[in-house]
């Protein structure tokens, strides 16, 4: 019994219309192990996990849990079979407490009081067993993202999960939150639970997994013991060619100041000051990186610079001219483009077809239709061009945007903004959820833009990305810019500044 694998997938096949998302997949996951799954954007990782969790039904193939074939026809059967899933987009009720969220759907009986008491006790046990500490009475919306994710894990454990699936869990986490998550996963493994981890970050794979499987274009192409492989081998297996893991770039030759910020103060929706009296310049032909732990004012800064949020005081100047209360549309006319941090919230309308999103913000351009009309043919031709250039898969401008994989959605946004050939580009988390091959490509494009003399402002929570791309690094902490460094600055130094400890 014990030597049965926790999960066996045999010949899993799934098509979405013409897209063959999973081709005859075989996968064995040993009990009590952490199994990584990697692969390019659109390789079929999320689809495979959705099949295991009962979101989709495979067209053919078999799922065996602990050696027994199971017909997982919906998420409830998956939960009953001991499978839990932590979604990339959390499924929590924002204004419920932690305890209420965990009990939701598993209230146990008509009377709440008894259930609450036993749930609280069970939660206590899970906390001590797995190091999953959160305040059970805290309201979800007041918790940091890392803690919300912990609640998702608790929810799965509370339902008796023996197998936990995490789909790109670290995309939204700060480095220290990610470290904590990995500690928790380690404890879970030591307690005999099985973990499947999908991520694009090979460093995480090397650090935490026991085994790693690689998917490419719907197929499972390799499985390796983590100890016996390397980042380089995995990268090559994923993309099918050698990948440059670090971009090469020459010296910057900065020109005139294009974008300046003077004593800028920005408040969030609750009226809390998020950007506090900030000043800096961005010159033509340079990339200025803003490093900082998420939530230290970077988002509000980007929103103010792109005209989405009105600053409460201070000035923004383009070519020395104050922009006043210019709208996002006006700023686009001035040659400012913006890759927003959150593609689902801002950068895309998920229910639109791909080609409709390919013009979002630029739809008034005469190129996409004269006068008040839209020229769908021109829009689609334009979208097709970008799809080819950025290798967006599947190459179908008529597909609903929600049906693209996460990384391909990101490429739709990046293609739209870069291909406008703006003079100023604001970049928020450009490679969140994007595979290493595409990261290489996007980084290349960003550096090309610099070399063409554009002014670029980069916000990223990935310190590696900031260090690889930026010519100058500004560190943001609690709404202030606490210091400026060059790209040569060590990770340690920057890390301390980001934590508000050193300047």
């Amino acid at each position: 019994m014990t030597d049965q694998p926790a999960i066996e997938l045999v010949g899993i096949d799934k098509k979405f219309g013409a897209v063959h998302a999973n081709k005859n997949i075989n996968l064995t996951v040993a009990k009590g192990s952490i199994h990584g799954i990697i692969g390019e954007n659109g390789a079929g990782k999320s689809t495979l996990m959705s099949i295991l969790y009962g979101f989709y039904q495979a067209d053919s193939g078999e799922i065996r849990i602990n050696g027994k074939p199971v017909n997982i026809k919906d998420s409830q059967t998956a939960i009953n079979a001991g499978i839990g899933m932590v979604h990339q987009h959390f499924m929590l009720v924002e204004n419920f407490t932690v305890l209420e969220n965990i009990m939701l759907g598993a209230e146990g009986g008509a009377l709440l009081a008894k259930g609450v008491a036993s749930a609280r006790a069970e939660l206590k046990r899970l906390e001590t067993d797995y190091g999953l500490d959160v305040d059970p009475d805290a309201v979800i919306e007041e918790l940091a993202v890392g803690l919300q994710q912990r609640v998702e894990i608790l929810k799965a454990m509370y339902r008796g999960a023996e197998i936990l699936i995490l789909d790109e869990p670290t995309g939204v986490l700060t480095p220290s939150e990610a470290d904590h998550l990995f500690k928790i996963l380690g404890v879970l493994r030591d307690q005999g639970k099985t973990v499947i981890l999908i991520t694009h970050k090979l460093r995480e794979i090397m650090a935490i997994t026991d085994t790693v499987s690689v998917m490419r274009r719907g197929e499972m192409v390799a499985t390796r013991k983590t100890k016996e492989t390397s980042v380089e081998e995995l990268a090559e297996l994923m993309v099918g060619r050698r990948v440059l893991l670090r971009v090469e770039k020459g010296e910057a030759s900065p020109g005139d100041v294009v974008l300046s910020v003077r004593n800028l103060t920005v408040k969030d929706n609750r009226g809390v000051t998020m950007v506090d009296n900030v000043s800096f310049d961005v010159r033509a032909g340079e990339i200025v990186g803003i490093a900082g732990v998420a939530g230290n004012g970077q988002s509000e800064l980007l929103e103010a610079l792109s005209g989405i949020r009105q600053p409460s005081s201070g000035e923004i100047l383009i070519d020395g001219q104050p922009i006043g209360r210019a709208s996002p549309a006006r700023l686009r006319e001035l040659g400012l483009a913006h890759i927003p941090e959150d593609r689902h919230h801002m950068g895309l309308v998920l229910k639109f077809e791909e080609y409709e999103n390919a013009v979002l913000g630029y739809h008034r351009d005469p190129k996409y239709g004269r006068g008040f009309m839209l020229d769908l043919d021109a829009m689609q031709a334009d979208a097709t061009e970008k799809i080819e250039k950025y290798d967006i898969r599947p190459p179908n401008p008529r597909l609903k945007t929600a049906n693209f994989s996460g990384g391909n959605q990101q490429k739709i946004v990046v293609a739209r903004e870069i291909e406008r050939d703006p003079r100023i580009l604001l970049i928020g988390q450009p490679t969140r959820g994007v595979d290493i091959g595409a990261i290489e490509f996007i980084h290349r494009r960003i550096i090309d833009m610099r070399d063409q003399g554009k002014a670029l402002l980069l916000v990223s929570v990935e310190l590696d990305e900031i260090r690889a791309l930026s010519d100058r690094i500004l560190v943001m902490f609690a709404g202030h810019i606490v210091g400026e460094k060059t790209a040569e600055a060590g990770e340690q130094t920057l890390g301390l500044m980001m934590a508000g400890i050193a300047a």
Partner: protein
Amino acid sequence: MSTASVSLPNWITYGLMPLLNLTLAFVISGLVVWLIGENPFEAVKLLLIGALGRGEGIGFTLFYATNFIFTGLSVAVAIHAGLFNIGSEGQAYLGGLGAALVALALDNYLPWYATMPFAILGAAAAGAAWAFIPAWLQAKRGSHIVITTIMFNFIGAALMVYLLVNVLIVPGKMAPETRTFLEGGQLPKLDWLMELFGLKLGAAPFNFSFIIALVMCVVVWFLIWRTKFGYEMRTLGISPSAASYAGIPYARTVIITMLISGGLAGMMALNPVMGASARLQVEFVGGAGFVGIAVSLMGRNHPLGIVLAALLFGILYQGGGELSFDMPNITRDMIVVIQGLVILFAGALEFMFRPALVRIYQNFVKA
């Protein structure tokens, strides 16, 4: 939940699913009819004969459907921009004022086809004006459009009664209504259209407004899916945050959308006021504005769906009237119950069968 993300072919979503919902609504209505001691099959027969049996019945059915197309389009346009316009009723009522003023001013001098463009503009302008204040309050002050448009239905009704009783009434007459328009202020009946199919229109008020309604369907389709403004409306309707990112001005989009929505509701007045009674009367809208909400819901906010749903409600209205006449046990209120069931199943519970259909479809595709 687990099936929500699976996409189904259009013929299932737009054909089979509404049909199943409708069938269920009729089965339950049949049970109700059976419970009050009437024969449900007999009732369905009477209803269908009443609505579609003779040329006159069809004429009435299409007359009602014309109202519902206008109000359905009005609701749908607003929904595409994420606005729930409950005020089509009041906007249509005010639209009557616009149409009547034009007809009263011009009917003496112009033939109907020359009066008509002005009447369309007058009706649309009055309906749009009545939508403007709620739209402005929503856009600038954040006052919820559902609340303000409901309030404006009441204010509009009071205003119209006041105007009809005190201002527009024919001196010396008792009835609160304007004088009868001359032929230059009336829209002609479509008896020739019925005759093409060998049908006699009889006394039914089926008139040229129907053609205007169909033209407006095409215009609305074009507006929503082929214009830049339609694109902005849809962006705002689906994702307000993406709209703000894209630089789509919120206030302007809300106000223009509501003006269009109110204008479409206002144009509904052409049908009863200039096409049927040839005068402005109190309460001529008769709830068509509210039926428009159900029609839009059931028609999936698409002009083609709206035409089909409007026809269905036209049949229920006309056939229901005949039925309550023939089966006294089935009162007018019973008909309202049946209409309510159709709205419940086809509108509110539209996705009830979806999970099951997804399963069946997936098994079918697998095999």
